[in-house]
């Protein structure tokens, strides 16, 4: 591999690329964290759900709707879809072992993926996002408006979510239903609906992530598959049940692997994934709950 010499301008550019990439992981990681926080399940279908809703947006826009008209419609569809999936597919296994539920989400991922190929075909599509693809010059470094938009949306979402979980009764009930469904019922929480709501919210977050990501990586049924892997990593890094952790973890991961891949010759592009794994493993050994997560202490 022939490598270009080091320049500060490139470093700045790589940093920007890393942050943007991280924000992309963060978007999906947020959805993963929300499902985990509200249902204690790891959702392998999260990527596929996001892609599916993005395809719906694409179809709507193909029929002449503008992004901003399509946007709320898609979010509503995503929410309804998330709730419906929980009610129809996950409800029957609500009390089954975690592994069973994880596998059901996997089945869902395969189903949705196939369905997308059948409906929309496997080819890549162009998706026009809400942000201009213009680049602006920031101190000699061209940065696209789109990138700035993506980062801003991730940060905005996490602030909203943090407020929601911290200050609303519903946010608390969502968490309670996840950690202890029996007792939640005893205090009057409709646990089934809470789980469904969790799926709905996660689907909405996934839809937003999908619509942010698609303009960058192009839309196709497999769009999210690699990103989902990194999003899992980001979620674990930040702490599986911490929305803030998802975003910080995502951006940290994006920056770290971009810079490692660029400047550490041995790692290059091939060992990015193993390097990320090592990074996370070391962190977890020090902090078993991730950067922002809390490990539940169980005492006797």
């Amino acid at each position, binding site marked *: 591999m022939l490598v270009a010499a080091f320049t500060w301008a490139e470093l700045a550019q790589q940093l920007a690329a890393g942050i943007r990439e991280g924000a992309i992981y963060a978007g999906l990681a947020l959805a993963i964290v929300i499902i985990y926080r509200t249902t204690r399940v790891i959702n*392998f279908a999260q990527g596929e759900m996001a892609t599916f809703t993005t395809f719906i947006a694409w179809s709507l826009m193909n029929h002449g709707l503008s992004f901003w008209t399509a946007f709320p419609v898609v979010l509503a569809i995503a929410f309804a879809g998330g709730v419906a999936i929980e009610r129809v597919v996950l409800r*029957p296994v609500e009390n*089954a*072992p975690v*592994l069973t539920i994880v596998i*059901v989400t996997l089945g869902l991922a395969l189903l949705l993926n196939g369905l997308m190929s059948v409906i929309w075909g*496997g080819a890549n599509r162009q998706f026009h996002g809400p942000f201009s693809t213009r680049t602006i010059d920031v101190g000699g470094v061209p940065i696209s408006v789109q990138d700035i938009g993506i980062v801003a949306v991730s940060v905005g979402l996490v602030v909203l979510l943090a407020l929601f979980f911290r200050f609303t009764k519903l946010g608390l009930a969502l968490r309670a239903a996840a950690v202890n469904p029996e007792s939640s019922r005893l205090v009057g929480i409709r646990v089934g609906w809470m789980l469904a709501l969790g799926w709905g919210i996660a689907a909405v977050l996934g839809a937003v992530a999908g619509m942010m990501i698609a303009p960058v990586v192009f839309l196709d049924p497999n769009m999210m598959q690699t990103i989902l892997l990194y999003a899992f990593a980001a979620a674990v890094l930040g702490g599986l049940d911490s929305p803030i952790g998802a975003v910080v973890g995502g951006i940290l991961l994006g920056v770290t692997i971009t810079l490692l891949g660029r400047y550490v010759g041995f790692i290059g592009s091939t060992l990015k994934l193993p390097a*990320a794994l090592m990074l996370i*493993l070391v962190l977890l050994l020090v902090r078993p709950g991730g950067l922002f997560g809390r490990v539940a202490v169980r005492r006797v």
Partner: protein
Amino acid sequence: MRSRLWLELSGFTLLALAVAALPRFISDFRARELAIVGMYFIALIGLSILTGYSGQISLGHGAFMAIGGYTTAVLSVNGVYGHQIRDLWTIPIAGVIAGLAGLLVGVPALRLSGLYLALITFGIAVSFPQLPKKFDHFLGGTTGKILDLAKPPFGLATTPNNWMYYLTWGIALVLLGAAWLLVRGKTGRALKAIRDSEVAAASSGVKLATYKTLAFGISAFYAGVAGSLYAIANAYVNPDVFPIILSVYLVVGLAVGGLESLVGLIAGAGLIYFLQNHADTVARWINQLPALNLDPKQPGIPSMIFGVVLIVVMLLLPTGAGGVARRLFGSLTTRFYTRS
């Protein structure tokens, strides 16, 4: 529980007889298919010891299969100091090397819990295929390593497929027996104790670190043997032979078989193979339903079928085939009071 013991022993004997007799009744290619099912079965036994008994979820067992497969490939293609080793003898070595890798992973796993461990092991499954790409001089990169086709040894007069069948299922039965001895004795109880309450297990004198790492090692050993056989059967390894999804399929097999049911895992192994390779058969069944016409050759349809079958199977058997068997025959019913 003497009766239980007899039941299990006679079940095992029956299984062994069935395995020995089956090739007489099936085509040569079916024997190959069943051999591959046997390989999944071996890997699943290992996974069951780890996840079903010691309670540590691994979504990365495909990586241990890959280690086994690559060990066999390297030993039989590159050889040791130029001496190529016959594929048959690489199998135990592959198991041991994968087992050592398992011990290595088991140590940090001690500090991880639940889904964190699951996702870290998933990370291993994701990362592992990068290693042969990076160290391509030794491990063959994406080009992979081409082995000699499996041939029956000692001039045995049987087809390669039959040979793979007997080899795989012979090993599977031995390893099944070993696993059975392991889990029904002191070790198995210690593992289950850890799974159910680490604190109480420790206070009862169970050394958590030892047993948990041991479970990882044993489990990886099984996966390594399975991977080695898989490499021999395909006469080829490259990173794509052990894709990420393989690890996930293994967990599927475990869930379908039932976490604690060794024999139920055969059903899990069968399902993994069947779904990957017989989507057209399933499509034919589905198309019996009125108003449905799935074309299994249309891209996307096989995935859909796989997905739907997975969901349906899990909805019907939330605790797996073994779970159902236990509910029908077993005396131990573990139910929580809000359920059932």
